[in-house]
């Protein structure tokens, strides 16, 4: 005899809980994140180039200033070396102080300096 109210419905449907987004969705999401990351990297590279340009130009603007200061010191050393040479070689006949060992008028910096 069936129970009052009839039999329970037969459970024939599959009972699978939701197991997260599918493979295509995950692939798409990863691809999107990577694409955004690479976009930022590209932007960052361009920005780094500009930062480098800024740094280089800040140095270029300072070159004349530092060079002028260095030149004055180099000239002072040059003159001092000349004086020293005159003093040391005054006994030697026909000695020309400060004469280059090379022919030609091209400027050559001294090979050795005396730090005083």
């Amino acid at each position, binding site marked *: 005899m069936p129970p009052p109210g009839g039999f329970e419905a037969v459970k024939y449907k599959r009972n699978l809980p939701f197991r997260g987004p599918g493979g295509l969705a995950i692939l798409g999401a990863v691809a999107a994140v990577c694409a955004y990351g690479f976009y930022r990297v590209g932007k960052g590279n361009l920005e780094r180039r500009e930062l480098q340009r800024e740094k280089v130009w*800040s140095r270029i603007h300072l070159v004349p200033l530092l060079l002028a200061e260095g030149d004055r010191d180099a000239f002072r050393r040059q003159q001092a070396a000349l004086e020293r040479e005159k003093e040391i070689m005054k006994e030697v006949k026909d000695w020309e102080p400060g004469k280059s060992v090379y022919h030609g008028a091209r400027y050559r910096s001294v090979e050795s300096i005396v730090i005083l």
Partner: protein
Amino acid sequence: MSVFHDSSSSSAPYKDSTPLPDSVPKVQELGVTSAPLKSAAFFIGAYCKDYNEDFMLCKNEAGGDPGRCLKEGRRVTRCATDLIAKMRENCLEQFETHWNCLEMNNQEYYACRKPERTLNKCMFEKLGLTKTIPGTPAGQKQIHEVEKPIYTTLQR
């Protein structure tokens, strides 16, 4: 004739034993350290453009001889001294904030955009000098004017 004297063992203050010859006019050296120089670099470039270019052209013609461009060099130094004095007169606070920031941040410009902007604003208002970086691609903002840069002191 110059003789070596150890300055650490001397009781008298240091005296240059081989000064510049009297034929060369004296000029006060700038005596500014690297961070203030870096902070002021673009303004020096803008303010002293003529003198700087004159000096570099002269150096190019002189072929490296330090004695041949002393006059132009003195002009360059005097111009820079003038500019630093003007900066200190007009924008002392902003200038000091910026170069102290540079000092604390490995002298990187990108780390000090906030103080830099106030300094640039002050320099433009008081002295009419602007910071322009040559060679910035056309139609792009200059790097120091970008609102949201990618490279900041914060790693994101």
